[in-house]
């Protein structure tokens, strides 16, 4: 099954809290179930996206790291 990514958020080069802030702003207008892909370089974002998804209820369905770039895939609740 391939995921249909609705929106991408490029948070590379940004530090806390902007990757979360930008993702929250990008995900808000989307329909429930939409998939958002986030790219970030902030090492703190690994713990932060997990915490953020628990607080908001949005689902962190995939995460990976490629070199210094972290990738998070989130399904909007």
């Amino acid at each position, binding site marked *: 099954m391939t995921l249909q990514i609705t929106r991408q958020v490029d948070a590379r*080069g*940004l*530090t*806390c*809290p*902007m990757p*979360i*802030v930008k*993702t*929250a*702003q990008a995900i808000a207008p989307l329909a429930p179930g939409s998939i958002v892909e986030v790219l970030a370089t902030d090492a703190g974002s690994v713990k932060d996206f997990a915490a*953020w998804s628990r*607080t*908001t*209820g949005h689902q962190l369905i995939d995460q990976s790291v490629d070199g210094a770039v972290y990738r998070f895939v989130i399904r909007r609740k």
Partner: protein
Amino acid sequence: MTTTTLERPAAPAVDPLAEAVDDVAGIPEIEPAVETGEPVKTKELVIVDWSGDLDRMWPVLILSSTAAASGVHCKVFVTFWGLLPFVKDQKRVVGENWMQKMLTLMQRPGIDHLKLSKMNFLGMGPWMMGVLRKRYGIASPRELLEAANALGVEFIPCQMTMDMFGLKHEDLIDEMGPPAGAATAIELMTSADASLFI
């Protein structure tokens, strides 16, 4: 010693025909929406923003914007020195009398003119912080304030401080909510899930 027998409540009657129809139709199970009757309470964070220093405004703005980004309703009660960063950009000196004017003459108001609580060194400290901030791609207080406003953080100015500093509501940024006092701050803090004094 007495033993009590707990009687199970009678199982609800099941209509075997309806069950069979469901099975045959092969309708996928849909999770029933949990309706408890009461609305889900949004979590709430209250921050008392007192200091106005760069090194304290940063956490105020980072935590408030992140709270709002996390679906946590955030209210910031802005009091004393905390009010000066919320003065509009184009205002340089505010106040009615010379003492109030002296205050903003000594401490330039506005979000771009914050001092450090330590190692300020006549502005060298904040300047170096600005250089480091840019080098590491860290958001400025201005960017964070814009994010906080866009995400719906509520800023509530302290009426008493406004009176003492000679600040009028129109001196403050447009996003500033109606002024309030200590009793409002207490009510906000006691009903919130978490509150901070920064």
